[in-house]
């Protein structure tokens, strides 16, 4: 802003808008010859300099991560440890990513020869001219979300047409559906293994913060299970975040099943900033580093190697991606409008509107968000991996939450399982509250509660009620038993078996005992009171 008069005192004062590009001329800052065609964060580029700019940023982010040992002589030998999986949503960024991957690593040599007048473009060491970097056939995975939005149409075929345009790359199109997360046949098809009878119907009671594990109805279809799961979530924010988590895990498990070493996602600088701010707002600050770069190892399959989740466009803005698609003539199917255009009151949508607006007025601010977040690291080490989102979880979440949260009597049993005692409750009252668990006696599993296995963000996602009392709250109370995604059930099943072999701890009571009960337990060892 060049003028900052106070509009309250001087009604005629207007904030003049800052010019969107540096310098006095519209000449490209790179070649310094051509007229500029696009402004990228105040810098002007011509059309012919724009393409190498985007491609260089893409490769600069991706290529140092390709070889299993990152510090090797990477330029001469780009060789990944496994195959390639790419997540495509049909939106601007992931469509640009697909185009960039196809042109950089899978373009046919003959086509390049034609344009390069007989010469091999980029030299013999260019990745395009060597053998393919990744093993096997590259997979493009698309997760159809229409199961969660009954008014939306199925777009698998239109996405398939976009993928099939790249005949040279020979991409394998892998369509997935959101409800696959609850479909045992899909779970088996990706080698997820068989679940025990109890795990097959493992569900969740969302009645209090302990998130007790119960028997849910296993007869329903995967689509019904998905809808029941989403309907049980307490807020709109949780609804959209849960879908994002399901998409991410579906992609990761599919990539693992295909022995992929890399999963590429089309997160641009703009969407990375949105994800970071939205994640922090929802309590996922501990895993903030994972938003930009993460490595994921399947828990149960020891033969699977680690998958690197890479966002090669994290230095490229959404604007550049859109212009890339337009100038390259790449058709964009557009994302599901209910998923990405709806939920105006959800934290994700509010953050997106804020960041996109910010980027229009102050383009450099968005990259500042991403760069600042990349410097953040948690104070404490990783304690475990969250069973729902499979991201790192910190130590002692529940103890901390018990100390900072204001709880109602309704949730008192959850509150007093920690070391704190509400001052208005006597010890006997606490003991009776903590024992009055409707599911405790009926549950046959030694793992009673999901809460200890969740990260702070996922626990908040499942339990945080809207202060306004939404319709979702009512439905959550009505259908208080929901089935869990299969990977969560499978991991619980695994933990259950481990737990069963070390049972001595589980025989101890889980609630805080009153003094009289403690006295009763150890009465045989007490010395009689003197006098």
């Amino acid at each position, binding site marked *: 802003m060049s003028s900052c008069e106070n509009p309250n005192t001087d009604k005629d004062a207007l904030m003049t808008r800052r010019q969107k590009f540096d310098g006095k001329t519209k000449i490209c800052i790179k070649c310094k010859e051509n007229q*500029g*065609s696009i402004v990228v964060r105040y810098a002007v580029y011509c059309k012919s300099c724009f393409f190498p700019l985007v491609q260089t940023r893409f490769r600069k982010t991706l290529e140092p991560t390709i070889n299993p040992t990152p510090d090797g002589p990477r330029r001469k030998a780009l060789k990944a440890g496994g195959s390639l999986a790419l997540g495509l949503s049909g939106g601007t960024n992931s469509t640009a990513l697909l185009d960039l991957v196809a042109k950089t690593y899978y373009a046919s040599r003959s086509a390049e020869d034609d344009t390069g007048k007989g010469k091999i473009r980029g030299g013999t060491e260019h990745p395009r001219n060597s053998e393919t970097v990744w093993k096997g056939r590259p997979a493009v995975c698309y997760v159809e979300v229409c199961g969660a939005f009954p008014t939306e149409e199925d777009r698998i075929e239109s996405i398939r047409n976009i993928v099939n345009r790249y005949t040279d790359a020979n991409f394998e199109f892998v369509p997935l559906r959101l409800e696959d997360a609850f479909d045992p046949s899909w779970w088996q098809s990706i080698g997820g293994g068989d679940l025990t009878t109890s795990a097959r119907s493992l569900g969740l009671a969302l009645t209090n913060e302990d998130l007790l594990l119960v028997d849910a109805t296993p007869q329903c279809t995967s689509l019904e299970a998905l809808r029941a799961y989403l309907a049980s979530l307490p807020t709109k924010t949780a609804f959209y975040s849960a879908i994002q988590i399901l998409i991410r895990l579906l992609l990761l498990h599919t990539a693992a099943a295909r022995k992929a070493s890399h999963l590429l996602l089309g997160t641009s600088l*703009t969407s990375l900033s949105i994800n970071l701010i939205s994640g922090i707002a929802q309590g996922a600050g501990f895993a903030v580093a994972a938003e930009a770069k993460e490595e994921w190892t399947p828990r149960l399959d020891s033969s699977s190697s680690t998958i690197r989740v890479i966002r090669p466009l994290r230095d490229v803005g959404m604007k550049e991606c*859109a212009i890339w698609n*337009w100038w390259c003539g790449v058709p*964009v199917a*557009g994302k599901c409008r209910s998923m990405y*255009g709806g939920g105006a009151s959800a934290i994700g949508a509010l953050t997106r*509107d804020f960041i996109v607006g910010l980027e*229009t007025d102050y383009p450099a601010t968005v990259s500042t968000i991403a760069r600042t977040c990349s410097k953040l690291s948690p104070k404490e080490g990783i304690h475990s991996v969250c069973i729902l989102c499979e991201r790192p979880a910190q130590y002692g979440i529940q103890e901390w939450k018990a100390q900072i949260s204001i709880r109602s009597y309704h949730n008192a049993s959850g509150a007093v399982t920690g070391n704190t005692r509400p001052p208005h409750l006597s010890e006997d009252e606490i003991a009776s509250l903590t024992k009055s668990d409707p599911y405790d006696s009926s549950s046959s599993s030694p793992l009673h509660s999901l809460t200890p296995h969740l990260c702070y963000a996922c626990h908040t996602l499942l339990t945080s009620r809207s202060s306004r009392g939404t319709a979702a709250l009512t439905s959550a109370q009505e259908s208080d038993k929901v089935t869990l995604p299969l990977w969560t059930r499978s991991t619980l099943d695994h933990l259950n078996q481990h737990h069963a072999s070390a049972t001595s701890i589980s025989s101890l009571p889980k609630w805080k005992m009153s003094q009289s009960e403690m006295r009763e337990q150890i009465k045989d060892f007490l010395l009689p009171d003197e006098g």
Partner: protein
Amino acid sequence: MTSTISIKIEFGGGLELLFNNQKSYKIEIPSLVPKDNSTDAESLSTKEKKPADVNYLIHHMRDHMLKERVELFMEKDTVRPGILVLINDTDWELEGEGEYLLKDRDEVVFISTLHGG
């Protein structure tokens, strides 16, 4: 008789869904338009005029071409943040954004990034 200019409009990134799912339009707009960008016939004949600019074009599109959900196209008298505009294949930020004076046979492209990811 008022003179008109011919403008070619194209949509990208799924924005055409708001405009009857048609990717390309060729429209005629008056070369002189009301200063307040109102597009009804009465205003066109009576109000104070200015040469047609992109701001007027956006209002014309909202009033005569948009089929649904104006909030997905416009915000505060301009296009919504997240919609890119190219004028004759050049970023409109280089051309003065909404104040660019339209010429006959100009091509204006609107690209949505809102559903990106």
